[in-house]
């Protein structure tokens, strides 16, 4: 007993930079509080206070993330590195979660899962993402990844009375666990080769111990590639994506689509561009090939879809392919391009999913055909979705254009022009489905709209005029104001940052230069 105490006295915990850690802490505390408040009996407490609390938590976390911007620090004995890259990714996840909370406010999922649990898990997942994005050690990496994933498995299955939800949860869980196991094995091999768990240590070992061509290290890299690729839904490890996106509750899908992708891409950047940068010549072609495959498969797969969520799922696959470009080139520019695109992707996808959600709440389905007449029913939603689709397609004046621009920029500068061409080809194919969605919104089937031919239509046919489009949102009927709010705000951001992208470039370049050791 005594010896134990003595031993305990010898143990000196690592120094903890609480300021840098604060976003993570806030998220954890918020999650716990949400869980606890969720236990209260009052319906108001559960249905209003809990979401409000999570919003507050997310706001606080976001504020802290912004606060820490520009103060890079490696904390807790090398477990985490809170730098600008990590903070930007954290911020994406936070914003995405914020939107998800708003979307979920009056939807089925939190009621089914319990509000406290739902929001608690959501916050835990955000925390997992934050950790993953800033992890500096394979163990932290793995725990972060699981902390991200496990709540999502549960949230996907939250609408337990719906078969699709359960199915998507199970699929996500099993395939996700296969991915995790693969990742573990890969990390084990890398650990085996390098004897290190910290990224810096691995990088050092790889560079100095002549491990570059060692099958053990390379095998490990292969498995890690697959493990990450799975999370980022990179083809051919993407197949869970559409199914899970379709089956999961829409707010969760929105969150998953944006935040998970951000976290997965972040760890791609961090692990490959920090720990394995010395072996770049080996893994870069592989990731480039995966990116190309992903772009093609994602875009092609989305073509014939009838479910909007599925379509967005495939589109997300394709976008993951685009974003891998930044990993492939492994330069500051590449990193910043990926981060920039992640931001763009956040805006576009949240706007799109918000509209999908609103439409689903109203019509009960996410079929593309259910969008018909949305332009009349709710112009604000219709415009938001239109903007989101055009942005995803990369039309100028939207943030998607800026994102693709920077990716192509990075690729061309990084001597990967061919991948830029693939990216462009993918973007072309993508028009095939994005435009169909827009068409479904605005262009009712032939015959119903009055057509302009040479014949002057007799006056008086103006009875059934459409409501104002492009006007103020308050003109619309607002069944779910918070959802419409999310849709409109994010769509507006897509346009605003599409026209004035300089702040984003600025931030992204900070993220790019956060990774030292790159060109």
């Amino acid at each position, binding site marked *: 007993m005594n010896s134990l105490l003595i031993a305990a006295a010898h143990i000196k915990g690592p120094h903890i930079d609480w300021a840098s850690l604060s976003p993570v802490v806030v998220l954890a505390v918020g999650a716990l509080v949400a869980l606890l408040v969720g236990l209260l009996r009052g319906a108001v407490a559960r249905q209003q206070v809990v979401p409000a609390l999570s919003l507050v938590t997310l706001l606080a976390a976001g504020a802290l993330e912004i606060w820490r911007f520009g103060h890079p620090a490696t904390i807790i004995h090398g477990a985490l590195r809170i730098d600008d890259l990590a903070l930007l990714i954290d911020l994406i996840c936070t914003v995405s979660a914020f939107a998800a909370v708003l979307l979920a406010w009056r939807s089925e999922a939190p009621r089914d899962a319990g509000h406290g649990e739902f929001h608690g898990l959501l916050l835990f997942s955000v925390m997992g993402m934050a950790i993953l994005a800033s992890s500096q050690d394979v163990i932290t990496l793995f725990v972060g990844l699981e902390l991200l994933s496990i709540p999502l498995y549960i949230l996907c299955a939250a609408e337990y009375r719906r078969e699709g939800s359960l199915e998507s949860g199970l699929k996500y869980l099993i395939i996700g666990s296969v991915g995790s196991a693969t990742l573990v094995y890969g990390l084990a091999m890398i650990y085996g080769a390098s004897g290190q768990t910290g990224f810096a240590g691995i990088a050092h070992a790889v560079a100095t111990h002549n491990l570059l061509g060692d099958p053990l290290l390379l095998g490990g890299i292969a498995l890690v590639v697959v493990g990450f690729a799975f999370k980022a839904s990179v083809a051919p490890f993407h197949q869970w994506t559409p199914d899970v996106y379709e089956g999961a509750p829409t707010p969760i899908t929105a969150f998953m689509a944006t935040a998970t992708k951000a976290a997965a891409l972040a760890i791609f950047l961090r692990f490959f561009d920090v720990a394995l940068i010395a072996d770049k010549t080996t893994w870069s072609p592989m990731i480039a090939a995966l990116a190309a495959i992903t772009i093609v498969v994602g875009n092609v797969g989305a073509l014939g879809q009838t479910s909007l969520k599925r379509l967005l799922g495939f589109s997300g696959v394709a976008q993951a392919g685009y974003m891998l470009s930044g990993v492939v080139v492994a330069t500051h520019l590449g990193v910043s391009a990926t981060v920039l695109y992640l931001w763009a992707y956040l805006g576009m996808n949240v706007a799109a999913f918000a509209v999908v959600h609103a439409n689903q709440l109203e019509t009960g389905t996410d079929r593309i055909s259910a969008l018909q007449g949305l332009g009349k029913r709710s112009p604000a939603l219709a415009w938001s979705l239109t903007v989101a689709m055009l942005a995803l397609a990369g039309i100028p004046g939207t943030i998607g254009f800026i994102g693709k*621009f920077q990716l192509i920029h990075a690729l061309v500068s990084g001597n990967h022009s061919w991948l830029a061409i693939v990216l462009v080809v993918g973007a072309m194919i993508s*028009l095939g489905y994005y435009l169909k969605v827009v068409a479904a919104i605005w262009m009712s089937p032939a015959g119903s709209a009055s*057509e302009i031919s040479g*014949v002057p239509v007799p006056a008086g046919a103006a009875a059934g*005029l*459409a409501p104002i489009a492009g006007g103020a949102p308050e003109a619309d009927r607002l069944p779910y104001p918070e959802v419409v709010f999310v849709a409109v705000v994010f769509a507006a951001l897509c346009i605003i940052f599409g026209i004035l992208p300089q702040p984003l470039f600025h931030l992204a370049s900070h993220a790019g230069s956060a990774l030292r050791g790159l060109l």
Partner: protein
Amino acid sequence: MSLSILIWLPLVLALLATQLPARHIGRASALLSLIPLAIAIDFMARFKPSVSGLQFVTDKLWISSLGIHYKLGINGLNVALILLTTVLFSISLAWSSQREISRPRQYYFHFGLAQSAVLGAFTAQDLILFVAFFDLMLIPFYFLVGSWGSGERVRATIKMVIYTAVGSFLMLAAAIAAGILVAHQNGTPLNFSFSAIAHLRLSYTDQDWIFLGFAAAFLVKMPLTPFHGWLADAYKSMPIPAVAVFSGVVSKVAAYGFLQVALPLFPHAAHHFQMLMLLIALLSILWATAMAFTTRDARLVIAYSSVAQMGFIVLGIFSLKATGGQGALLQMLNHGVVTAAAFFVLAAVAARAGGSESMDDMGGIAFRAPVLATFFLIVTFANLAMPGSSNFIGEFMILLGAFSSHMWIAIVATLGVVGAAFYALRLFIGAMHNRVGGRVQSFELNRIEALAIAPLVLIILALALYPQFGLSKSQASVRAALAPATLGGSYAAAGKPHRVYTHTAAAASASTSNSASR
């Protein structure tokens, strides 16, 4: 007055107009569109034709980290096209305002957006800005076709947008690559403005593929054979005012792009691919002529004739001779006016043929509509480039340019001239003459129709009397634009330093633009 005002005003005015009660929007939009027109005339009047460089320059750093500039400017290449754009949009809006249009707010909004985008594309002096405006043009037309079109409009609009966007995306990649590679190869900071790229060297192989990217976008947009797959469906489906401006100015943006962007910036590639482009132009002329020969659809006759005309325009540009370039530029102006007029006339004719646009349902319309017939005739003669029309001067100079660079291509291309006479007249006769068609109820041109057609016909007549209008402003700019490409081969062979000529031209333009902007 800043160019920004000119290009953004249509959008702003459209937004203002949509705040009015639905029944006033059309008229308000039409009236308001006279403001940009007046501004454009003002610019035209203040334009100094003797200067080859930019005038009225607006240059702001837009995205500083990428060296993308918000740079607008007018030179001899775009000054007339800007005027044409404002004219055609005014007329299209006037035409629309007299008709009942469902969802007028969106309709006029899209028109305003389209006008802003087109004006932006014409004035943009930065690669990325140009690409952005070029793609932005697509959006309003996508909606205009898809929501207010006829027939298989959704399919048609998606087809159109995908086709054209394929080109634009390739152009985007090419544009980015151009900026980056120029910066890399010269060790200069990123800068996408035309003037910056024009006087820096770019390796020949890079020039080649970048040029092809641009060419793809432009060729699809015009369109030329074999990139015209979207044309028939889209033109068939477009509402008349939309097709008038689309065919009138949007397709010109592409041709203009060759002159303003592709040739001066990538002169070696332009020189290198001259034969290819000439052959494509020739193929388009012949192919479209053959198509226009056979189709019974009046609208497609005009559509294909416009493909043939675009073929001539490209022929002129890629003659890489000043005459050809001048002719091409004049022909853009002419064709813009004429094709828009043709579509409005077609609408009037279709209104008399029971709404049908098939030549089978027309015939004998001239009798009770002599004024319409006269207008149609004038348009037809202009369309077939009859000597005496301004179109003839355009074709004359184009062919002269082509003749002096590749004689046989010019000679074969004249087949298109003869063919045009046949199909254009066939359309006129089929619609206006011969026995009365089954569903025809002829009546004289009414005030509403005249509102659109008469001004265009007057412009056609005015240009016919004084085609110099379209030539006088552009000579210096065309020479400057073509000179590097014309020299492309010779200095490549001699291994002389790159692009001495443009360097001085750019320097000259810089000095003049400074003075002009003040």
